[in-house]
């Protein structure tokens, strides 16, 4: 214990105190830099759920089944299935960026690309329609040819107008020969019941309701196999940015398919409930009119030599024929939507 420190001690201590300043400054600046960049990374929070628009259709049921079974969580992805009532509404939500991806057909993929100008990437093919897309007509109308001059309900900008166009051509008719009433799928049964339309281009579960109201099938997709391809598509940018999550979604989807193979009763019950129809109706729609595409089938469509491009070409050609007559691919008019901010 030194009671009176010598001068050299004083000086040394003073020097030491001065030399503290430099290192402490370095530490402070380093901390500042670290803290300044803390919380960096890309803009959106990583844990924001992927939102996928989906409408009732037997082939999409596996996505709902995966949701109900908690497969998405298992695969490490947070998915929010945003239920819409029809392909048109689903595509509209997608166009408005309310959802990141959507279940739909190639028609919606193409019309969406055309209407909002961004490339859309197909990441999964769920099934193709083999009879479940159909035209149901009033009992007075015997066949396709009987549709001439009749009022036919179809949803604008969706698969239904392509199906209608293809069907009419088979009967030697064109859309000029019929009275096309643009109507949402959900509203078709009531319009049919009230006699506002004579026929409807529809698919389950709406087709089940219209059939119950006496509608009979004059055309179905089994006559145009391979055209009505149901897919999961994302905005290309999202597909690139969140590829891992999308892979997880695909894994969960195929897992649900495998589950349904093993436990069809439970699976159909869940899927039917989520789509608001009976298990029997669901089962028949799925098994009779839809060809489910599993994990092993993906390459045939999406692979380097897959047929997706060809199908796209066919449909684009069909849409181009409709376009000059102003019947399709109209940029979505704001008044047509009912959503949006009040």
């Amino acid at each position: 214990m030194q009671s009176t420190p010598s001068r050299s001690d004083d000086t040394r201590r003073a020097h030491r105190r001065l030399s503290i300043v430099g290192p402490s400054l370095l530490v402070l600046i380093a901390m500042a830099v670290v803290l300044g960049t803390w919380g960096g990374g890309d803009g959106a929070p990583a844990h924001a759920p992927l939102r996928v628009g989906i409408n009732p259709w037997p082939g999409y049921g596996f996505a709902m089944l995966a949701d109900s079974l908690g497969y998405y969580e298992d695969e490490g992805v947070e998915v929010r299935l945003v239920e819409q009532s029809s392909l048109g509404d689903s595509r509209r939500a997608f166009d408005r960026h309310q959802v990141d991806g959507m279940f739909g057909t190639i028609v919606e993929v193409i019309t969406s690309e055309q209407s909002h100008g961004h490339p859309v990437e197909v990441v999964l093919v769920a099934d193709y329609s083999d009879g479940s897309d159909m035209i149901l007509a009033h009992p007075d109308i015997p066949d396709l040819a009987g549709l001439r001059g009749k009022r036919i309900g179809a949803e604008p900008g969706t698969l239904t107008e392509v199906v209608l166009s293809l069907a009419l051509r088979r009967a030697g008719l064109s859309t000029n020969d019929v009275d096309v009433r643009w109507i949402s799928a959900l509203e078709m049964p009531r319009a049919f019941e009230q006699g506002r339309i004579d026929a409807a281009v529809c698919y389950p579960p709406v087709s089940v309701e219209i059939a119950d109201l006496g509608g009979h099938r004059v055309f179905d997709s089994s006559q145009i196999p391979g055209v009505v391809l149901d897919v999961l598509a994302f905005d290309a940018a999202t597909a690139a940015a969140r590829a891992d999550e999308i892979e997880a979604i695909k894994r969960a989807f195929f897992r649900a398919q495998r589950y349904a193979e093993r436990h069809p009763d439970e699976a159909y019950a869940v899927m039917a409930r989520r789509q608001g129809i009976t298990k029997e109706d669901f089962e028949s729609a799925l098994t009779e009119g839809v060809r489910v595409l599993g994990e092993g089938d993906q390459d045939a469509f999406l692979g380097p030599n897959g047929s997706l491009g060809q199908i796209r070409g066919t449909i684009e050609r069909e849409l181009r024929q409709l376009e000059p007559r102003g019947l399709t691919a109209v940029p979505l008019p704001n008044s047509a939507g009912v959503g949006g901010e009040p």
Partner: protein
Amino acid sequence: LTGLRIPSVGRSIRFRLLMPVACVCVVAVVLSALAPRWLASRLIGQRLHERAESVALTVGYAAESGIEREGLTRLVTAMGADRDVAHIVAVAGDPARVVAGTRRAWTGMDPSDLPQGLVSAAAADSLAARRDASGASRDRDQVFSVVPIGAGAELSRLSGGAVLVVMDSSAINAEVALWSRRIAGVLIGAALLVVAAGLLIIDAAVLRPLDGVVAAIRANDAAPAPATEELGLVAAAYNMNRASAIASGAAMKRALVKIEEASHAKSAFLANMSHEIRTPMTAILGYLEVLGERMVSDPAEASEMMRAVRSNGDLLMAIINDILDVSRIEAQQLTVERIETDPSRAVLDTAALMGPIAAERGVGLRVEQATPIPERIVSDPTRLRQIVNNLVSNAVKFTEEGRVTIRLACDPGRERLSIAVADTGCGMTPEQREAIGRFRPFTQADASVARRHGGSGLGLCIANGLAERLGGGIRIESEAGRGSTFTVAIGTGPLDGVPMRAGTAVERPPAPDAPAGPVKAGACLRGARIEVVDDGPDNRRLLRFLLERAGAGVVLHENGQRALDALDPGDPPDLVLMDMQMPEVDGYAATRELRARGFVCPIVAVTAHAMAGDREGCLEAGCDDYLSKPIDRAGLYETCERWIGVGRSRARGSAA
């Protein structure tokens, strides 16, 4: 300064300055990081509630506007697709059933059966009750709003129903949390940078300069001057204190040296004086003892002894006068007269006095005039004589052979008269000249001078003091072995119209008219009545003896009171010799009383008080003149004779 200790870290100015800044920064940063988050959460919660209510109202409005069930369902799913909307459920009917929802599977369900994981119990209850409600489910990051649906909703069969909107705040909360973290990070980083910058600035601008000052104070060095005003002030104050301490130390040292020198000079002077006084005293007392015991029978030998007593007494008197003059000069109380004076006369008188002494030593004495000299100047003749006498006697004393020359010169333009006294004596070294030139009393060129030549060492000091009082001073030129020249300069006063006397050299000036022999003790005072008032019996006796020898009739009084009692205004004496310091009634009071009683006879003060102002005091009291003790016989006779003459004419005047 050794008492100043290095402060502990807690007490250092660094710590005290930087710690609070750092603390304030931390607190400010934490607050500014937390506050936005809290505020944002609140605002977002509020906005989500508003939106939930707004969506619910929109759905309700659509229902009340008559939209069909399918349209309503599409509306619900479209609005439900919004990112922040978790679920929308519309119920109607009794019992309540779900008629439209974001999940198709819910249609037709009892609202209380809605899955609790998706819709909170509180929300489901409010929906079932169809009442206006809103709330939040913090654990699920949800807020909800329930709005009842009014009439007009028949088409969608929703009349009397309600709409529940559940908002999902998790995404927005996550975003808020992310941004809060980012902002906090940036803020804390910025704050740390600010603290670092502050540390640097304070260190560079304040602490380092302060360190410099502190180090200087510890080392007792001069402090550097920091640029900061306050520190600069501190440093300047410290430097000033230090400088003044150093300076006062040096001044103290110098003063001490001076005091020692002065003390030494006084001691030397006292020793010298003691010697100077004892020498004549030895002669006086010795001879008086011999004479008193009548050991000498030869009258010639006795007369020689008496002459020795007399000259030694004169010497003693001169020494005492010198001491008085020095003390007056030192006390700056020396007064000089300013009367018309003939400078040539003063010089010639002195030369006449000193001539014989010089001749005795084989030294010539010569008076020269370099310029015409005014016949009269305004000065003090006595003091002028004293100065010249001093210088000449010095010159004669220090000259073994050769001569002493007195050279007068006058510069009428500057009204200045100079008297140079040059000798061919031993001269002085520059050091001696320097010492003499300070004109300090008690100083001679060196101690040996006193032994060889005698003298008190006061002469030059007095001469210079007098010359200064007369408006000039003394200048010394000297060369060792060749001789010295002391030049005194005095002011002359105005010289307009004063006749100038052309100069001639005077060798061995003639002796003045002054009586050289014994004072004639003739009958100059015959018949005069003189009253002597003195308390000293010896003095009374001496005066009586001297005055009676001159033929006067003498009456003695022991003090002023006796004199007042005895003196009769009707029969006044011819002269009163009044001692001034006496017991009972002193000379001053007695004189005043006499004058008050109407005595007009001359009164001459006789006093041993020789200090400046004494003469004025006497004259003021009413005396006509002043004689200082010891009594000079010639002076006594001359004064008495003169005043008796004045008194007689005064008496005749008053009688007439």
